[in-house]
């Protein structure tokens, strides 16, 4: 084919190579559209996950802030009890109590009550002699960790079994 001198506008019959190129172009366009659509879906999924994460992080932050507030709120008994539990766990109380028990005496029972203001202890001590018991009382008082001591009835002949109440005061210990 050479130059076209036609005076009319016409659309020539497409050649095979034109059709192949058109098919190739349309296929490429289709693939691009699919890839773009897939990428968009991925982006939306990631956005949703990020949004969910932000929401969850916000809730956690809110919960932590509430707990913090409750910790400092002395009017909230539950919060105070929780704070007492965290500050004075049973292993720590036992560890503080252990040096006060002299040789020749042993703890028969120990009950811990986590109250609103402090931890209340009720312990039963078995001492071989009255002197041993006195030594225990002296040690408890010296430690400064236990206050408001209330002694039960005593039988100071031979082996002694005494019930004793106290309030745990770790912040005042030596």
């Amino acid at each position, binding site marked *: 084919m*050479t130059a076209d001198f*036609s005076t009319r506008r*016409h659309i020539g019959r497409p050649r095979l190579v034109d059709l192949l190129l058109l098919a190739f172009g349309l296929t490429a366009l289709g693939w691009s559209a699919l890839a773009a659509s897939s990428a968009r879906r991925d982006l939306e999924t990631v956005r949703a996950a990020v949004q969910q994460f932000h929401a969850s992080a916000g809730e956690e932050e809110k919960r932590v802030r509430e707990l913090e507030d409750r910790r400092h709120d002395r009017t909230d008994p539950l919060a105070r009890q929780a704070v007492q539990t965290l500050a004075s766990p049973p292993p720590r109380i036992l560890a503080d109590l252990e040096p006060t028990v002299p040789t020749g005496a042993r703890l028969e029972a120990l009950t811990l009550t986590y109250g609103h203001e402090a931890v209340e202890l009720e312990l039963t001590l078995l001492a071989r002699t009255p002197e041993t018991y006195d030594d225990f009382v002296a040690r408890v008082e010296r430690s400064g960790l236990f206050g408001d001591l209330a002694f039960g009835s005593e039988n100071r002949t031979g082996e002694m079994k005494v019930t004793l109440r106290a309030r745990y005061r770790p912040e005042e210990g030596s």
Partner: protein
Amino acid sequence: MVAFDVGRVWGVLVRRGLAQARLVGAARETLPQGALKPSPHERNLLRPAEVRDAVHAVCAQLGLAEGQRADLILPAGIARPVLFDPPAGDTTPDSLRFRLANALPYAASEAVVGTIPVPPGRVLAAAARRSVVAEYEAIVEAAGCKPRRVELAPLVAFAGLLARPLPARALDVVLGEAAVSLARWEHTGLATFRTRLRTVSRDDLAWLAAEIERAAQTNGQTSFAAVRLAGAGACALADHARANGREALLAWDLAQPPSGMEPAEIAWLGGVLR
């Protein structure tokens, strides 16, 4: 594809493959004398009804259905192709129209222009008057076909010839019934190109032979290797040239040409079957 010349209308069916086009059918109708007279600016179809009937007959012989699209090949003589170097390779229609304007016997705005590339870097350009092209389009439409592309016989012929370059000092001669184009080859490709009107009153063969000798002259001396001929009267002119000691070739041939067709006598055939 419907092709016109002064004395005949050709119809050919061409099947285009990936590598090459193939001729699958051909039909010819003779036009009465004076029915068609190629001219760059005047009315070409002097007896349109007879031309329309010839086109219709050709389409019928080829089995073309009513309304089927057909490309047109217009005869030599309606445009005068020019070989030139486009400045900065500019071959836009406006640039070509400006370049060809001085040689047109009508307003440049009425020209439909086109080119074929001529390596290295030159173009063969032609301008056809819009009203002349429209005449041919209208007659094909009146014959029942739908006109599509319109090409010029000399440009189609040279498109085929340029695909098979000749050695230096050889000539290509494209013969239309109304005009003849002569091109001389040099080492760098096509070097000169000229078109002459052909008149029936002359001793045609002698006049053509003289034109060939003139086209082959460089610096006042005639020196050419061979002449390659295509178009109306190519076989007779080849014989004439050989009889005068010149090497003459026919531009194209077909292994099995349709009945009544001499391939070398159809100038545009090689360009169509590229």
